């Protein structure tokens, strides 16, 4: 499906697919969050990503769509910050804003540029949330996903195959959050009682990489 580089249109497709996945799984994400959080992760993510796609649609309708990847992701990040309300607003918002800054005013990303942008996004999430690996957060899905993406690209795979490897690693990372005791976010209020549940943020992050893999032609 894909050649060497990921286009602006494909990135919009990624966002659209992510919107679809979090909306389809809204109830599941909220169920996970009701076990260890405040039962709003599904509705927050669905509302946020629907706002993102409405904004993209509105800009297209005005004849002024984002013409570069930094512009696209800046708009995505700011829309999430203003529409989500919960902690996933500033966290996913920071992820996309940092991705945009690192991607720059370009219209496509090759494997190395995609990796660099995603890495910058992860760096933003780490800085914003002050979380580390093993804290039972979205980082536990995102960090292994990016390691797998890089390993795959280094082995000569194209972006589609690398995204597929990233999705597999994100899923494994998500599953590995189940026995963990939360050390960040609302779930950390529960202490030991947070163990035995998947982390909702890691679960939505796995959907983010599922969407990327789907869009790039897994």
């Amino acid at each position: 499906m894909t050649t060497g580089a990921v286009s602006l249109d494909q990135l919009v497709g990624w966002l659209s697919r992510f919107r679809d996945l979090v909306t389809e799984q809204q109830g599941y994400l909220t169920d996970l969050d009701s076990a260890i959080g405040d039962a709003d992760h599904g509705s927050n993510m669905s509302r946020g990503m629907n706002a993102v796609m409405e904004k993209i649609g509105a800009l297209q309708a005005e004849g002024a769509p984002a013409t570069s990847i930094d512009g696209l992701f800046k708009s995505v990040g700011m829309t999430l910050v203003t529409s989500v309300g919960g902690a996933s607003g500033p966290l996913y918002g920071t992820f996309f804003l940092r991705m945009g800054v690192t991607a720059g005013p370009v219209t496509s990303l090759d494997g190395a540029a995609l990796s660099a942008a995603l890495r910058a996004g992860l760096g933003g999430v780490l800085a914003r949330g002050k979380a580390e690996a093993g804290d039972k957060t979205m980082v536990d899905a995102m960090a292994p996903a990016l390691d797998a993406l890089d390993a795959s690209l280094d082995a000569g795979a194209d972006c589609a195959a690398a995204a597929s490897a990233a999705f597999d690693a994100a899923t494994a990372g998500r599953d590995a959050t189940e026995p963990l005791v939360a050390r960040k976010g609302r779930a950390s209020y529960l202490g030991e009682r947070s163990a035995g549940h998947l982390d909702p943020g890691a679960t939505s992050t796995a959907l983010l990489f599922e969407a990327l893999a789907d869009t790039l032609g897994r």
Partner: protein
Amino acid sequence: MIGIVVVSHSPALARSAVDLALEMVGESPPPIAIAAGAGDGIIGTDATRVADAIDEVASAEGVLVFMDLGSAVLSATMALEFMATTEEVRLSDAPFVEGIVAAVVLAAAGASLDEVDGESRAAMDAKRGQLDRQPAAVHVKPVEAVIENSGIDVTLVNPDGLHSRPAAAIVKAMAAFEATLTIANATTGKGPVAANSLIGILSLGANTGDVIRISGTGPQAAEAVEALGAMAVDGFGELPDTRIGA
């Protein structure tokens, strides 16, 4: 005066906390801006609203930001990247309600960002003092006992002792004097604490009938001690027959 920003998931919570604090100050409150709620009536926080609130109250004297919990803290840290002002903006780790009340009172008295920040962070100690629990990490700054012969002892006559409203009145009144005053509860042995510290005064747990000892140093210490003594004798305007307004 420094600017104060209140960040909450709930607009109603933020407004009520600010209203409570404003009860303590008179006609000239500090600049206060609220950033609460997100999107269209969602319970949550929005970093761009926090940034706008900071810019609204920013001045060379600085801004102190109070947050309730969770995403409020994330949104406030993110707002530091969005705000336009280049003045000093500090995020407070003070307890929400106690911190806002202490900050508004001290800011209205013209205190600096450092003073207001420190006072707010010590705000849990008043509550711990009332419950006889030991302070955790932050303490009300102990004050050296000052010259004995400059002090006076006054018995508290107002119905509720040194609760928050008279404490706020003391902080405000003492800002006018070039003097450093301390108040101790001579009945219980608590204190002395600085008379410009709302939280310190509350931590005395001084009730009706307790004797408070007012002492001071500085060029206007005698006048300040006398003024504070007069306020206490007058029951801080809270005696039924002397009550003026609210």
